[in-house]
């Protein structure tokens, strides 16, 4: 194996910055600093979202230019002469060198989902400032670093997955713990995402109809691609998006017609529909439903995020939420319980640091990257884009009336189910909104009620419809609201299908060790059994979430956040181990510090969820409070009867045990990784590094989005440069 010390350092060799560069970067720094100052210093007056955008973009630019470049060239020592797996193992299908701009699109579309949209909305309960700070600082020092470093190491290992890297580099024990944690996390993720959908679609004939229509549309697209014109994705996607918009418009007609009742579904009915959908979709062939759905949701995702970015910049709305609310210190917020540390970090999750991204950064993307030097643009750059999506979601949640925000996000058990009681309870928290205004807000978007529409999606949709109708006029407000709901529901449904398949795959692989036929992934009985188990598991959490007297999102979202952040801890532990083992000990802090922070936050949150003596936070305390109530024969609010009391006791027990088990698994991974690192430092000869050997690259391609002068000259001299550049 060759080392690469003689071919590294900065790409153009030592050079001095030109006066022009210095002026530009000073200006960028000033823009960012001004944004931060205004956000931090203004209290009680109206702050424009422009400052949030300025703080974010200024900080991203500086982080990308300086910190990401430093990590890429000084720490990882990316090597443009080293062939990537895409070049070495090119099979024309999953391994093939892909143009960096195309891969950026692919990677971003793969990592962006409902998470960064929902988390910041819920975190807005503590005010916009804590969320903004963590989304921006977190992405710069933790999230984007994780994505880039995982991408780099997986690229050096022929695109190995995170689980494989954990097994090979840490050991079978840590690897098994990581795999088990990944499975549990997948189940929780699917349960919570499905819960978000149910809360958005319940009692909403318009939303339910348009989402239901996506199934026949996807089937039609699948048929078109399979039978009529194979592979013509662009044209079929255009047809699909047009039909989708038609379904959206038709949703209003249905909601106003006599069919409305058919599509007005109670939450528990929707649960059954969703689980049935998840099960059937995951056993159907990929071409029929999953693949076309995926095209649709990708188009909608990119389109809507683009529109939202334009909307925020054009409308530059004013933030109405407080910078920091009283709930931040007291920890008794209605949206989720617990104080700012650690729960704001847990709730924001994906927009700042997401463990799930490490599954994309290892596995899919490394098989397509053209040049090692592009990990900065693809890994770090995409994550900055995702973080900006989270900032937009936070803007959307902070521009709506705080009274409406709390009425939408507090569980029904807390605010009651009439606008009068909601107005009164929300008023007692210091946010005034009249019953008439609450009713009018629902009427404006043609929904029967907006009370307790928890989960973040409806709140985000209200924010988006506010921003968009500022540009297009008020008449389209209801349309934009349902457009936003459809956009989220669409990719959550796709995630349910895809996630069930991945969970099933893990299960088939494991069960295959006990009973051989399971290993054959196309063995029908095995397929049906494992799909059924996976759907049953997430379906259980969904059912529990919908029937939870204390509020499903309130109870389950923290577990979702914790599990995602725990997966990030696994990824960061793998990265740190690899940095140490590959002779980069002095740079191990690059991922080591984010790991320490993430582990502290997440394990503190797990600890509080398990052991806190505050019944709103600690699951076992909650359990004992309600169990004592049952023993005394007393019904405690928000439970309405003894059945509710028993439900709470059961759920709190399950949630508490789950939190404890997840935390234990991650502690095992971190301890095992630490053991490997210490062993390596003491006796380096004992450790092995499974890096693919050096092969010289024949491809010439730029590292960044815009080629530098030197790269252009290089490309001119080379043959076979990528088309279109």
């Amino acid at each position: 194996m060759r080392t690469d010390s003689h071919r590294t350092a900065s790409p153009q060799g030592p050079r001095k910055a030109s006066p022009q560069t210095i002026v530009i970067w000073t200006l960028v720094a000033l823009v960012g600093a001004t944004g931060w100052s205004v956000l931090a210093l203004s209290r009680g007056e109206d702050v424009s979202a422009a400052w949030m955008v300025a703080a974010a973009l200024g900080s991203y630019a500086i982080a990308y230019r300086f910190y990401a470049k430093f990590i890429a060239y000084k720490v990882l020592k990316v090597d443009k002469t080293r062939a990537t797996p895409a070049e070495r193992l090119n099979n024309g299908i999953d391994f093939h060198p892909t143009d960096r701009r195309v891969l950026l699109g692919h990677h971003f579309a793969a990592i962006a989902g409902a998470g960064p949209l929902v988390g910041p909305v819920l975190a807005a309960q503590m005010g916009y400032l804590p969320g903004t700070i963590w989304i921006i600082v977190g992405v710069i020092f933790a999230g984007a670093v994780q994505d880039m470093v995982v991408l780099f190491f997986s690229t050096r290992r022929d695109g190995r997955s995170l689980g494989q890297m954990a097994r090979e580099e840490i050991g079978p024990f840590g690897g098994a713990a990581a795999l088990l944690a990944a499975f549990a996390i997948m189940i929780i993720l699917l349960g919570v995402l499905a819960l978000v959908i149910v809360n958005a679609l319940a009692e909403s004939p318009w939303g339910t109809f348009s989402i239901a229509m996506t199934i026949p549309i996807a089937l039609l697209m699948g048929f078109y691609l399979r039978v009529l014109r194979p592979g013509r994705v662009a044209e079929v996607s255009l047809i699909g998006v047009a039909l989708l918009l038609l379904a959206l418009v038709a949703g209003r007609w249905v909601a106003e017609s006599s069919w409305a009742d058919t599509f007005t579904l109670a939450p528990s009915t929707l649960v059954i529909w969703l689980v049935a959908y998840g099960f059937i979709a995951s056993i159907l062939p990929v071409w029929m439903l999953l693949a076309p759905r995926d095209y649709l949701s990708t188009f909608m995702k990119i389109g809507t995020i683009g529109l939202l970015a334009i909307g925020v910049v054009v409308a530059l709305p004013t933030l109405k939420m407080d910078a920091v609310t009283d709930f931040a210190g007291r920890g008794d917020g209605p949206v989720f319980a617990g104080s700012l540390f650690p729960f704001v970090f847990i709730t924001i999750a994906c927009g700042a640091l997401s463990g799930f991204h490490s599954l994309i950064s290892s596995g899919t993307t490394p098989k397509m990257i053209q040049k090692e030097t592009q990990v900065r643009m693809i890994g770090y750059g995409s994550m900055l884009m995702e973080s900006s999506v989270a900032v937009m979601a936070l803007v959307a949640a902070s521009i709506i009336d705080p009274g409406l925000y709390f009425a939408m996000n507090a569980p029904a058990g807390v605010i009651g189910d009439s606008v009068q009681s909601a107005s009164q309870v929300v008023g007692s928290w210091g946010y005034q909104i009249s019953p008439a205004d609450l009713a009018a807000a629902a009427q404006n978007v043609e929904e029967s009620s907006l009370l307790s529409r928890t989960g973040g999606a409806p709140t985000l949709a209200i924010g988006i419809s506010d921003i968009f109708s500022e540009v297009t006029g008020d008449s389209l407000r209801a349309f934009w609201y349902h457009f936003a709901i459809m956009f989220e529901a669409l990719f959550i449904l796709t995630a349910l299908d895809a996630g069930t398949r991945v969970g099933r795959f893990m299960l088939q692989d494991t069960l295959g060790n006990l009973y051989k036929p399971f290993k054959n992934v196309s063995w029908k009985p095995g397929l049906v059994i494992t799909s059924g188990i996976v759907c049953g598991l997430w379906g259980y959490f969904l059912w529990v979430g919908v029937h939870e007297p204390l509020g499903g999102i309130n109870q389950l979202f923290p577990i979702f956040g914790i599990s995602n952040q725990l997966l990030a801890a696994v990824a960061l532990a793998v990265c740190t181990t690899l940095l140490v083992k590959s002779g980069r000990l002095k740079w191990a802090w690059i991922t080591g510090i984010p790991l320490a922070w993430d582990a502290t936050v997440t394990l503190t949150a797990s600890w509080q969820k398990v052991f806190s003596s505050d019944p709103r936070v600690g699951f076992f305390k909650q359990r004992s409070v309600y169990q004592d109530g049952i023993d005394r024969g007393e019904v405690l609010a928000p439970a309405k009867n003894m059945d509710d009391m028993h439900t709470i006791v059961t759920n709190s027990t399950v949630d508490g045990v789950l939190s404890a088990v997840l935390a234990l698994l991650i502690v095992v991974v971190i301890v095992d990784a630490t053991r490997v690192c210490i062993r390596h430092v003491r006796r380096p000869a004992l450790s092995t590094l499974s890096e693919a050997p050096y092969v010289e690259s024949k491809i010439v391609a730029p590292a960044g989005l815009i080629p530098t002068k030197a790269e252009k000259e290089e490309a001119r001299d080379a043959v076979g440069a990528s088309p279109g550049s």
Partner: protein
Amino acid sequence: MRLALHRAVRGVRWYVREFTDESAYDRYVAHVRKDHPDAAVPSRREFERMRTDRQEKDPRQGFRCC
């Protein structure tokens, strides 16, 4: 002016074809012709079937996040 417009349209078309993977077949054919000149080139229909079958076998390919 017309030249610039023409280039822009071509650029967009190229990006859309690449991003949607509509160009996957052409790429595969080029790959087979170049690296395995003796192998038979599948039809587009066969190729697209093979691609979805692969995804069926390992659903982790092309997985998307929360």
